[in-house]
């Protein structure tokens, strides 16, 4: 599903140049649940941004579902993001003046799907995350865990190839974190490819494979025995 070869990225701040990614190689197959770990500054967020086409690599190859991702202009990038990717953010990033349902249906709106079908599909995903009866509430009326579940429904709405989660449990307490992870595991069980960036060990162990980043290089990439979140809830 994802093939990355020799990925380099550096940031230039004035005369200083910061080499963040120093040659990353890794593949993700369809249906995998991968966590990317590393201390801050290890380059894990940069890697996720490049995977999410929010940022572009300086060098190297990135192939997503057999489509080479390079020299994108913003219009095409937006289209690819809409079609291929679903984002889950640490701070949820729901639009605060839109109801849960409208938030979920937003990717479908940008996809150009008609209102009626959009609402149906969005409702379907809200049901999937167990928030059907909250569909008309504003984000401010939801708890942190509920917000993240709305965000997950939103990421799923356009039926993307890959879900990218940037510290999805970073703003949640342990119990809620496990609930969210349970949901993510469930989605993965249905065959969705998911990448999770985290620095929490217990969260990482709830995935099937842990990629460890340090100073812009992969130092460890191993399959682990998945801990089911449901056992902890």
């Amino acid at each position, binding site marked *: 599903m994802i093939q990355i070869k020799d990925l380099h990225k550096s940031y230039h701040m004035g005369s200083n140049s910061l080499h963040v990614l120093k040659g990353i190689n890794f593949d993700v197959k369809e249906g995998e649940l991968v966590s990317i770990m590393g201390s801050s500054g290890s380059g894990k967020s940069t890697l996720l941004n490049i995977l999410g086409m929010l940022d572009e690599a300086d060098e190297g190859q990135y192939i997503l579902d057999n489509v080479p991702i390079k020299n994108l202009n913003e219009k095409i990038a937006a289209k690819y993001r809409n079609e291929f990717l679903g984002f889950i953010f640490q701070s949820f*990033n729901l*639009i605060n003046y839109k109801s849960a349902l409208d938030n979920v249906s*937003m990717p479908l709106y940008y996809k150009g799907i008609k209102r009626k079908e959009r609402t149906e599909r969005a409702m379907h995903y809200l049901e999937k995350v167990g928030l059907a009866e909250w569909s008309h509430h504003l984000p401010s009326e939801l708890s942190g865990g509920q917000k993240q579940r709305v965000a997950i429904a939103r990421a799923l709405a*356009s039926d993307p190839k890959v879900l990218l989660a940037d510290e999805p449990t970073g703003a949640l307490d342990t119990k809620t974190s496990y609930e969210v992870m349970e949901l993510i595991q469930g989605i993965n069980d249905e065959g969705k490819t998911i990448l999770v960036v985290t620095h929490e060990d217990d969260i990482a162990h709830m995935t099937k494979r842990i990629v460890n980043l340090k100073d812009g290089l992969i130092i460890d990439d191993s399959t682990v025995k998945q801990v089911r979140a449901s056992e902890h809830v």
Partner: protein
Amino acid sequence: MFSKDRWDEILEALNANKFRTFLTAFGVFWGITILVLLLALTNGLKNGVTADFGDFATNSMFMWAQSTSKPYKGLPKGRRFNYKISDVAAIKSEIPNIKYVSPRNQLGGFRGANNVTRGTKTGAFEIYGDYPEYIKQQPMDILQGRFISYSDIEAKRKVCVIGTGVVKGMYDKDEEVLGTYIKVNGVNFLVVGTFKMSNSQGDGEQDASTIYMPFTTFGQAFNRGENVGWMAITAVDGVTITSLKQQVFDLMKSRHKIDPTDERAIGHFDLSEQFGRVNGLFTILSLVGYFVGALVLMSGIIGISNIMLIVVKERTKEIGVRRALGASPWTIKSQILQESLILTILSGMVGISFSALVIWVMNTILDNAGPVDNFANPSVSMQVVFTALIILIVSGVLAGLIPANSATKMKPVDALRIE
């Protein structure tokens, strides 16, 4: 471009911060209100001043005889002459594009002595000898009976048409007017009609105290013979009297043996030229109205632009999220543009409605308080409203342009990082 979804998006965004939306809109509202009111007031002034011209056909001039200032063909300078009734026919036949030529004679006038009697009543009125065409140059409402006709002219009938002021002065209330006689300078005239000026402003009193009688009767009764006091000449529509008047003067000079270079022999008042001058003044006033109004409006628009910039800045993260979800830069840009456009047009519409209300109130007050000097019926035409709308649309787009560009300038990754 304006689907229902887009509408919802825009209205949601504007609703998200109602107070700010209101304040922003107020600038444009105020600007357009001032623009429209300024133009309406200019128009009111114009209506008031041009009403002083009365309803007289504006493409006209009055021409009278003065004394010659140059000797010519053995005749001395300082010679007085008179237009003759035959001059009227000559002008009509020899000069193209002339619509009406009315020869006129007058008795009485400003502070004149009593010249009309009826039984025991007497009064001082203006008495004119006129041709039937005159009513076409000076529109008036015939209240009873009729105006002078050509058969009156040919038969030199002693008939007259009197103004409401004359009726008031010479008759008792509810007394039958038509068919009675009034005595003008000792000559009896049958009253065949009464009139009121269609639009009398200012000179109403004078207009009402007027008596019209056939030109030929006037000449015979008051010993004017073939002489013409002055003429009111109107050109056809599309040709100004100003462009024709020299031909008329040349014709008169040749017919009355006046030196062609004598500028003083013929006196005239070019109504069209005067009217044009006044109109020109008001065109300038309107332009000033547009200019000042547009400047006030512009400050409102800068306000919108400014607020939109802040909105964009505040929503940087939201815009980042939207782009992560697949919004293309153009989608974002057009949304910002449309938000500013809708805000501008909406507040502009409210402004136009509000100023229409103010104009209505002004008119109601004016109607109740009676006529005011040099001010009447402030109003704006649909053309002004459309112009204002076009200004609004253009400025709405302009106001949104800078914010829309700044909304997509930032890379999504940076936009998402902002807290």
